[in-house]
């Protein structure tokens, strides 16, 4: 041990002092505040309007909170609002959307993850060509394929059914999801895959027991991407479904844009919020899973 005698220091020492109120902070937080208001205000207007009765809305005070809180518009939006001829609100559309989204998300992710795994780890002859073609698919505008797919579904006898819509969503999710999974599996250490092969695991063994448990983050990303994408889809829903199989987004449009009678702003607002609730919930619930680093400890840490 080297002996150092204590001495009093002069001049700057220790952590550098920082001012809480500085020009930089005022500018930064001021900007953030303005932007936050800009985005939050429409939501605020929607929520308070949906809780008002029609007489109160007619007064025209858009920003004032409801004098008399009523949930009647929410009930009406869910079960009574008229879409064209039928008057059972959003509920049918909601369940249609669930029946479309759940199988489409499951099928597209199941297939795309195996695709990505095979492309990343089991290089087969022509793998690169296959991958290029698949990626090219991501850049073709949907509109180009609308009509051909109508004919295909008609010939297969599933045009207008929920099954047909599920198939369309599964296929259209394929390029971007395969790219996502392939890139993720490529980033996993290759030696892990080699070790599993030496340990005698096969194609499915490695996929289910090594790759899947390490891929929670990317599956979360894929679920978020697909649930929001398919739930919010309007184009495919309106083209490939019939009135009784319309997804929620189409039902919402029909409620909001119905031209007969009075415009019920409160019902429209409530219906819109209900429709947006599902993707919103997904974001809130899965946020935590995003952050976790699952591969920690596999290689040198």
């Amino acid at each position, binding site marked *: 041990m080297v002996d150092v005698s204590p001495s009093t220091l002069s001049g700057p020492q220790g952590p550098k002092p920082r001012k809480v109120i500085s020009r930089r902070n005022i500018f930064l937080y001021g900007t953030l505040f303005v932007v936050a208001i800009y985005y939050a205000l429409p939501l605020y207007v929607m929520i308070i309007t949906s809780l008002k009765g029609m007489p109160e809305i007619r007064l025209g005070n858009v920003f004032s909170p409801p004098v008399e809180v009523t949930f009647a518009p929410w009930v009406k939006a869910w079960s009574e609002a008229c879409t064209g001829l039928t008057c059972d609100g959003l509920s049918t559309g909601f369940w249609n959307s669930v029946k479309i989204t759940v199988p489409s998300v499951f099928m597209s992710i199941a297939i795309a993850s195996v695709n990505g795994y095979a492309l990343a780890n089991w290089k087969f002859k022509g793998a690169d060509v296959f991958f290029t073609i698949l990626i090219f698919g991501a850049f073709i505008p949907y509109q180009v394929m609308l009509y051909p797919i109508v004919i295909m579904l008609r010939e297969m006898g599933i045009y207008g059914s929920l099954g047909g819509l599920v198939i369309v969503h599964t296929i259209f999710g394929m390029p971007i999801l395969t790219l996502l999974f392939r890139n993720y599996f490529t980033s996993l*250490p290759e*030696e*892990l895959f*080699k*070790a*599993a*092969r*030496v*340990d*005698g*695991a096969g194609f499915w*063994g490695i996929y289910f*027991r*090594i790759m899947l*448990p*390490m891929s929670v983050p990317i599956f979360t990303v894929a679920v978020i991407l697909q649930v929001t994408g398919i739930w919010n889809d309007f184009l495919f829903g309106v083209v490939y479904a019939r009135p009784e199989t319309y997804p929620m987004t189409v039902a919402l449009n029909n409620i909001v844009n119905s031209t007969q009678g009075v415009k019920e702003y409160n019902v429209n607002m409530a219906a819109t919020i209900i429709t947006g609730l599902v993707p919103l919930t997904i974001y809130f619930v899965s946020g935590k899973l995003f952050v976790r680093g*699952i*591969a*920690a*400890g*596999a*290689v*040198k*840490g």
Partner: protein
Amino acid sequence: MNNSVEIKNLDLEFGSVKVLQNLNLEIGKGEFLVLLGSSGCGKSTLLNCIAGLLDVTAGQIHINGNNVTWSEPSERGIGMVFQSYALYPQMTVEGNLSFGLKNAKLPKTEIAQRIKRASEVLQIEPLLKRKPAALSGGQRQRVAIGRALVRDVDVFLFDEPLSNLDAKLRADLRVEIKRLHQNLENTMIYVTHDQIEAMTLADRIAIMRGGQIMQLGTPDEIYGQPINKYVAGFIGSPSMNFLDGRIKGREFEFGDLSIPMTGYNFVNGSPTDSETTLGIRPEHVVTGELVGNAPFQTDVTVGLIEPTGSDTLVDCELAGTPFRVRMDGQAKVSVGETLRIGLNPSRASLFDKQTELRL
């Protein structure tokens, strides 16, 4: 049938790049063979071919007398240890060790027995319930070795297993691998770019360059009689001094110096007048009282001193060419001083200047 691994006329190409070319290698039962070379020489590729992780372009691989060229890695009777450990992060240490055995559908009691034995050998019993993330680098590599050990195979393949560890741990585990080899008497093939690891562990070393084996021999042969200039420069630290000159009869002429090559064993008899490179290892240059016995003596001026504790390296010039001398760490020497050095030609190496082969 005495060979554990035989590699016959092996070729491997990635597209148009030839990584391995007509490679032949025979590894005896219980032998510790080290594949040594700088990065990109094909040593890891060769190991992956033996493991069955890469399809070969041409040639055969035999393990224990069976032609395994087309066999799956798990069917070849090999265990492999990777540089990055490659432990399955979501499984416990026990899960990592048993994964291969479960895939082979061994009975539970047998699996438990093998894990017990391997964890005893490697002293990882207290770690069995932990996940890899909760282990240190050295512990992880032990588990990785354990995963090869439980497979109860004849051939172990190591792919730079110690490169990710810090210097002290590396030295410890090196000794442990050597002890493991002495106890188990398995065949081990070990890839490294670290010559100290190669020299300490190997029964035989294969020096690789450009997808070919340059020299295959015991550590002694590789160090003492390097077959060409590349091997001579690659092995030994600090590296060998090279002096470009001419050989005339039994005299090596270099600048205004003339070094008698008495006691040097020429490979094909002594050549007549030709351009030659003389290689002398810094540790074979004698200083101090020993100079008197050396066949050739000269004076140099000390240019730079690098003390390492155990020895001191002295940079100087010999007839205009940079030259390094290793002295004892206790020796007193200072910059600018004149140093008397002695060379012993019997411990030097001569290489043809054109072909770079040993003379």
